[in-house]
């Protein structure tokens, strides 16, 4: 094992390549848990998952077990799921509702803002026992933007505003599509694990290069992927079959970066004027009634598609969902996919999205399963010590400014977004 001081870590990242150790080295993974997942703003959950007082969900930030809970006064708290008495995990369910959070071991109970509310058997308590000092630990920093709740496990660091930066408009792009201007993540979830490093999934969410190859089995003889969305007649053309190459329209797609490891890809318009079905037409009417026809058309002609909010979540704009990436070990990762319901849209529109996600992103889906296979094979291949470097040089030096979007732009089949992720990675990792 190498000594992982700052200079040594910097040597793992070069302009167009990354050393294999960043995917395979267990001590480096431990350092990532400390320096990235212990510091960065991480996506925790969505406000709609805890809509009523006492509603909670449990998850992990890195490997720290946390409870996201709605208090009586409406505030959302992110609490460490660890009893302050003898250390047991307080809440074992993935979600639920409780007036108090009660530990199974000795019955200590905590209010939904974390304060210690009850300690059974007062006889025997230390004379100087300070009940106020035994509340559940809070994530030091918590922030919310339009229902998306983030937390940082570090007291100090980049402010939430500075971290999220221009990615706000990517969230806006999605939330604005709901006629009532809000989203609900109440349609269950898809969960899967793969035997590979967490960054393999992070790198993949904005990767337009792999689609014709990784997903060859979902592209039909005409080079078209199956139709995906309510009201669409056919899917995207990704291959020109006669020339047996990636389609020109696919190659023209753009990707963007704007700091902190975040990025997004462009999309063809959601509504090209041809998209139509009873549910979709009703949705368009509902949106136009709320925001006016002109604004509705603007919302349905976005420039944003898949967005990565580094390091642990993405919002996907086509088959709309939130994706959360949770590292389990250097070679094991869990991913959760939450279908998004557009509040105020017709039920058939939302149910169309839920059904679509079964096909594209369940553990048994047609699309994501081939990505998982690629991640597993990458992890296996990266065992090879004779080829030390992973190449991420596509389009290096061809990046160009996009002044209108205040971002940097490249072709989506380039690897600019991956290079941006490693720049952010190094920013977290090189600081002791």
């Amino acid at each position, binding site marked *: 094992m190498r000594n992982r001081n700052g200079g040594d870590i910097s040597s793992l990242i070069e302009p167009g390549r990354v050393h294999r150790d960043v995917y395979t080295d267990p001590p480096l993974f431990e350092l990532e848990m400390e320096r990235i997942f212990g510091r960065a703003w991480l996506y925790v959950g969505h406000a709609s998952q805890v809509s009523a007082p006492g509603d909670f969900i449990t998850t992990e930030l890195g490997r720290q077990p946390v409870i996201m809970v709605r208090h009586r006064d409406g505030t959302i708290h992110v609490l460490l799921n660890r009893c302050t008495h003898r250390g047991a995990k307080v809440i074992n369910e993935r979600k639920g509702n409780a007036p108090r959070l009660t530990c199974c071991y000795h019955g200590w109970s905590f209010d939904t803002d974390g304060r210690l509310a009850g300690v059974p058997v007062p006889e025997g308590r230390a004379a100087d026992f300070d009940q106020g000092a035994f509340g559940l630990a809070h994530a030091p920093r918590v922030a919310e933007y339009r229902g998306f709740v983030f937390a940082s496990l570090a007291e100090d660091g980049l402010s939430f505003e500075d971290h999220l930066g221009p990615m706000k408009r990517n969230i806006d792009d999605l939330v604005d599509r709901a006629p009532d201007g809000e989203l609900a993540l109440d349609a269950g*979830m898809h969960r899967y694990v793969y035997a590979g490093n967490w960054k393999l999934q992070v790198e993949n969410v904005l990767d337009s290069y792999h689609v014709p190859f990784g997903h*060859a*089995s979902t592209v039909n003889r005409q080079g078209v992927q199956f139709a995906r969305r309510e009201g669409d007649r056919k899917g995207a053309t990704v291959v020109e079959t006669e020339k047996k190459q990636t389609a020109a329209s696919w190659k023209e797609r753009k990707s963007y970066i704007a700091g902190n490891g975040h990025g997004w890809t462009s999309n063809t318009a959601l509504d090209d004027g041809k998209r139509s079905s009873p549910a979709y037409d009703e949705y368009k009417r509902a949106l136009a009634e709320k925001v006016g026809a002109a604004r509705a058309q603007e919302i349905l002609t976005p420039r944003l598609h898949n967005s990565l909010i580094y390091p642990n979540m993405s919002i996907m704009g086509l088959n709309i969902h939130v994706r959360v990436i949770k590292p389990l070990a250097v070679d094991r990762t869990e991913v959760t996919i939450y279908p998004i319901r557009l509040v105020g849209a017709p039920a058939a529109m939302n149910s169309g999205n839920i059904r679509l996600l079964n096909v594209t992103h369940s553990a048994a889906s047609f699309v994501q399963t081939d990505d998982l296979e690629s991640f597993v094979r990458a992890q296996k291949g990266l065992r090879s010590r004779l080829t030390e470097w992973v190449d991420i040089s596509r389009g290096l030096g061809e990046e160009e400014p996009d002044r209108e979007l205040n971002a940097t732009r490249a072709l989506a089949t380039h690897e600019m977004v991956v290079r941006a992720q490693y720049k952010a990675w190094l920013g977290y990792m090189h600081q002791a």
Partner: protein
Amino acid sequence: MSTTESELERFLIHEARLLDERRFREWMELFADDGTYWVPAVPDQNSPFDQASLFYDDRDLMKTRIERLEHPRIHVQTPPSRTAHLLGNTVVESADDAKGEYVVASTFIMVEYRDEQQRIFAGRAHHHLRREAGRLRIVRKRVDLINCDSAFEAMAVPI
């Protein structure tokens, strides 16, 4: 025409065998034109329309799924899965010979081997069957895995 319990059970065994022998097109043909195949993602799931499911295929989606399973470059089936189903504890929950409609509950274990790894799926299945032109067809197959809400490694073949 009455249908005996043993005929219903033989139908289920035949269905499982088609899956184990990767005769997916013949398997699909067991489904009625309006047939659906559903594997919920949470226990006691009420509906496939308002909650995520592991599988919810109508005949159209089944066809797309099977075309993919036949594709030479389906990476997640390179190498392909081998499966063995064992089913039992069959109970005919309802039988209407006049309409030719039957509901059969069963318990199953499916062992899957692929790429040096073996794993086990287990749960209960409900088959809603209908006799059409003399032959039994599946109107709805619901598979409730005991671990349906856990995190899975990639799945490719129907259960």
